[in-house]
C-alpha cells in the first residue's frame, strides 16, 4: 500500500526514519484534496445536468429563492467538519514539524558550510569534505549549517528534510538514514547563477566503514580524501566505487578542455596557470582582488565573467550545467593539489597570458 501510493505520487525513496510517517500524512492530505475537488466538480456537473435550463422556457424563468434550512444546516456541518479536518492536519503536521526540527541529543554533529555554489562539510575530528558528506547509516546526524554568502537550502528528497542555510547564523537539521546508500543533496533556495548545479551527495556507510573513512588522513593535509564520484541516479542503483578525487579532477579537467587554456606547471597560457593558484591573492579587473579559495574557483567555472583575473581576456566559457557537481569538487581538489607548484613568472608571480594567442 505504502509502496503503491509512493510510486503513484512520484515520491522519492523513504530513506530516513521520519520519511514514512510524513508520507502517511501526505497520502491523507492528498487523497482528501483529490477526492474533495472531484466531488465538488461532480456535484456541480450533476446540478448542471439536472437543472439545465429547458430550451423552451424563457431565458430568465421565475426561479424561486427560498432555501431550505436543512441545506444551510448541511453546509454548516460540512464546514465544521472541514475545519476539524484541517486542524487535525495542523496538529499532526506541527508535531511532526517540531520533531523534524529538534535533533536527538545523541546525534553526531557535522558542520555544513554553504557557498555559491557548493557544499562543504567538516567533522568534529577536523576531517573535511566537499560536496559529498559521509555519515554512518542508522545513526542520528545533526547538521549545523551556515552560509558564507547568500541563503541556500539543504534539501535531501529521500530524507524529506529541508532547511535554509542562512548567512550570519546557524540553522540546524537532522536525519537518521534507514540504510546505507547514496542520496542526492539539492540546493532549494535560489542562490544565483549556478543554483541548480549546487548539488551534492550524502553517502551513508555501514558504521564500521564510516569509522575507517573517518580515521583516514584529514582531507586538507594530504592530496585528497577518497570520494565516490558518480552522481546518484535511482535507475542505476548505487554503484559504490572509490576514486581518488585529485585523479578524477585531472581527468575531468582534461575531458572538459580546461587544460587547453590553463597550464598546471606554472607556465603562461591563455588563462591563468593553476600552479600555485589555490590560496593565492588574485588581482581582479577593476583594481580589486580576491583570495583564490574553493568558492572563487567554483565561481570561475560557473560564472567566469563575474570576476576577471586582471590582464586576461574574458574568453572563458561558462561550464555551468556542463560539468557535474562532483566533477566540480574534484577539479577544485585537483587545483588545490597544485598549490605548491612554483609559478614561472618574475619573482614567482603569475606569468600572465601567452601573447599572440587570443582565440582558443
Amino acid at each position, binding site marked *: 500500500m505504502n509502496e503503491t501510493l509512493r510510486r503513484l505520487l*512520484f*515520491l*522519492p525513496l523513504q530513506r530516513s526514519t521520519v520519511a514514512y510517517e*510524513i508520507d502517511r*500524512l*501526505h497520502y491523507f*492530505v492528498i487523497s*482528501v484534496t483529490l477526492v474533495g*475537488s*472531484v466531488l*465538488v*466538480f461532480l*456535484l*456541480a456537473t450533476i446540478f*448542471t445536468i439536472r*437543472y439545465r435550463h429547458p430550451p423552451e422556457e424563457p431565458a*430568465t*424563468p*421565475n*426561479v424561486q*429563492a427560498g*432555501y431550505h434550512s436543512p*441545506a*444551510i444546516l448541511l*453546509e454548516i456541518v460540512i*464546514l465544521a467538519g472541514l*475545519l476539524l479536518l*484541517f*486542524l487535525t*492536519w*495542523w496538529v499532526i*503536521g*506541527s508535531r511532526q*514539524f*517540531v520533531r523534524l526540527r529538534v535533533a536527538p541529543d545523541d546525534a553526531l554533529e557535522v558542520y555544513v558550510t554553504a557557498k555559491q555554489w557548493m557544499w562543504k562539510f567538516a567533522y568534529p575530528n577536523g576531517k573535511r569534505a566537499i560536496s559529498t558528506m559521509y555519515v554512518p547509516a542508522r545513526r542520528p546526524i545533526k547538521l549545523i549549517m551556515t552560509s558564507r554568502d*547568500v*541563503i541556500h*537550502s539543504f*534539501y535531501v528528497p*529521500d530524507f524529506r*528534510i*529541508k532547511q535554509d542555510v*542562512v*548567512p*550570519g547564523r546557524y540553522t540546524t537539521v537532522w536525519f537518521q538514514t534507514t540504510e546505507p546508500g547514496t542520496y542526492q543533496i*539539492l540546493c*532549494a*533556495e*535560489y*542562490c*544565483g*547563477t549556478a*543554483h*541548480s548545479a549546487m548539488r551534492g551527495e550524502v553517502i551513508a556507510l555501514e558504521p564500521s566503514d564510516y569509522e575507517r573513512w573517518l580515521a583516514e588522513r584529514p582531507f586538507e593535509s594530504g592530496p585528497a580524501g577518497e570520494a565516490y564520484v558518480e*552522481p546518484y*541516479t*535511482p535507475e542505476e542503483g548505487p554503484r559504490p566505487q572509490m576514486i581518488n578525487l585529485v585523479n578524477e579532477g585531472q581527468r575531468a579537467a582534461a575531458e572538459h578542455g580546461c587544460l587547453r587554456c590553463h597550464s598546471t606547471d606554472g607556465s603562461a597560457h591563455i588563462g591563468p596557470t593553476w600552479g600555485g593558484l589555490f590560496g593565492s591573492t588574485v588581482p581582479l579587473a577593476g583594481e580589486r582582488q580576491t583570495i583564490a579559495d574553493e568558492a572563487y574557483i567554483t565561481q570561475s567555472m560557473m560564472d567566469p565573467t*563575474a570576476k576577471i583575473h586582471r590582464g586576461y581576456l574574458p574568453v572563458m566559457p*561558462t561550464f555551468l*550545467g556542463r560539468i557535474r557537481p562532483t566533477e566540480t569538487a574534484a577539479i577544485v581538489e585537483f587545483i588545490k593539489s597544485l598549490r605548491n607548484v612554483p609559478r614561472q613568472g618574475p619573482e614567482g608571480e603569475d606569468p600572465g597570458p601567452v601573447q599572440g594567442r587570443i582565440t582558443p
Partner: protein
Amino acid sequence: MTSGTYEADLVGVPETHAPTDVGLDYLRADRGIRSWLLTTDHKRIGLMFYIVVIFALILGGIFALLLRTELLTPERTVMDAVTYNRMFTLHGVTMIWLFMIPAIPNVFGNFVLPIMLGAKDLAFPRLNLASFYVYLLGCVVTLGAMIWGGADTGWTFYVPYSTTSQSAVVPIVLGIFIFGISSIMTAVNFIVTTHTMRSANLSWFRLPLFVWALYGTSVIMLLATPVLGLSVIVVALDRAFQLGIFDPALGGDPVLFQHLFWFYSHPAVYIMILPAQGVMSEVVCTFSRRQPASYGAIAMSSLGIALVGFGTWGHHMFVAGMSEFDANVFGVLSMFVAIFSAIKVFTWVATMHRGSIHFNTPMLYFFWFLFLFVFGGMTGVAVATESLDVHWHDTYFVVAHFHFIMVGGTLTGFLAAVHYWFPKMFGRLYSERMGLLTSFAVFTGFVLTFFPQFLLGNAGMPRRYYSYPARYQWLNVLSTGGAWLLGGALVLTLGNLLVALFWGKRATANPWGSRGYEWMTPVLPPKTNFASTPFIGRGPYDYDRPEEAAHA
C-alpha cells in the same frame, strides 16, 4: 405585483428611455485621442487598463513559454543559466504586478463598480486617471529595467542575494514601488466610492457580490502595499548606499526581510483571487438565474479572507529559519483562512441547486475555476501543513500550487469576466461556439502544463532550476507541451474576441437575462451611466421576480 411598481424602482435605468435622456454611449460621447488619454470616465480608464494589462499578459506568457522551452532538456536547451534566471524573475514580476494585481480590479472593477453602485463615476475620477498613469510609469520603468538586463533575484527579492546580485535590481524594485502607489490610489478610490457613492436605497446588503470582493481587495491593497513599498525601497537603498540593514556581515538578519515581504505578498495573493471570486459569484448567479444560496456567507467571507489573510504570511517561511512557535501560529491561521474560501465554493455549488442553468462560456470558465481553485486551494492547505511543506517548499509542487490558483483561478476568472462583460463593454456578442471550444482548449492545456508539476514537486525537483537531474525529464516534457497548447489556446481565445469586437453580432442591453444592476443600463452605458441618479429598489439577484418587472 405589477410591473408598474418595479418601473418606479429603476428610474433612469431602463432602455425604454430615449437615448437623448442619457446622452451618447461612453465610446462615442467624446471623440479624439485627447478625450481618451485625459478622460476621467471610469469606463474609459478601465478600457485603457484593459489594453495594457493584456499586453502584460502576453509578455509574461512569452517569458513563460521560453522558460518551459528551456526546461525541455535537463541541461541547456535554448538559453544559458543567467538568462534563465532573469527570465523567471521577469515572468513573475510581469505576471504579478503588471498583469494580475491590476487585471480584474482596474479593468472590470473600474468599469462596473460605479454602475453597480448607481453612481456616475468613482469618488475621485482624477485620482483614477492618475492611478492609470502611475501604473503606466511603473510599466515603463520595469520594462526599461528588463531591457537594461533585468534582475535575476526571483520575484521575491530575498536578501542578501538581491543586495549583492549584479543585475538591474534597483530599477525593477523602483518599478514595483511605483505599482504600489498606483494600487494604493485605486484602493482609496474604491473604498471611498463604496462607502459614499451608493445610490439612495442601495444598502450594503444589496450590493452585488463583486463589489464586496473589490472592497475586500481594496482593504488589502491599502494596508499591505505600503509594507512592500518600504521593504523594496530598503533593498534599493541598501544597494545604492550599502546600508546593510539586512546584511549579515553587518549584524543584520535576512529573515526579517522575508517577514516584511510576505506580510505584503501573502495578502497580495488574496488581492489576486478575491476579484476573481467576485466575478465567479456574478457569473454563477446569472447563469443559474438564481439568488446566491447565501448572500451573507459570500459577502462576509470576502471580508474574512481580507482580514484573516493578514495573519498567515509566515507559512512561506517554515524552513527559512523562523522559530517553531511562529511556524505553528502561522500554520493554524492558514487553516482558518482556508475555510472562508470553502464557504464560497460550497455556496456557489448550492446556488446551482434548483437553478435554471445556462451553459455559456463564462459558466464553463466557472466550471474550470471550481475544479482548479478547489484543487489548487487544497494543495495550499497541504503546503500549509508544516511537516509536509518541509519536503515541498521551493519545489515544483509549490509552483503547481500557485499556478493552479493564479492561472486556474485568477486567469480563469479574468477570462470569465472578459466574456461575461464583453457585450456590456463593447456592445457586441462573441461567438459562443468558439468561446466554449477555446475554453476547453485552455483547460486541457492548463492541466497538461501544471498537473505534472505536482508530481515533479513530489519527486523533489526544486524550483528556479535551470538544469535538473535527468530523472525529471519526461514530466517536464509533458509540462512544456502543455504550455504550448495553453499558449495556443489563449491566442485563439483572444482571436475570437478580436473578431467579435469588429464583426460580432450587435448585443442587446442584457443578453444574459441577468438581474445585475450593470445590465440595466443601455447596451453601451452612456458617459455618465445614468440620466439621473437611479433609485435601486431591488437586489441584484432578484430572479424570483417576473422578468418584465425586474427589467422594468
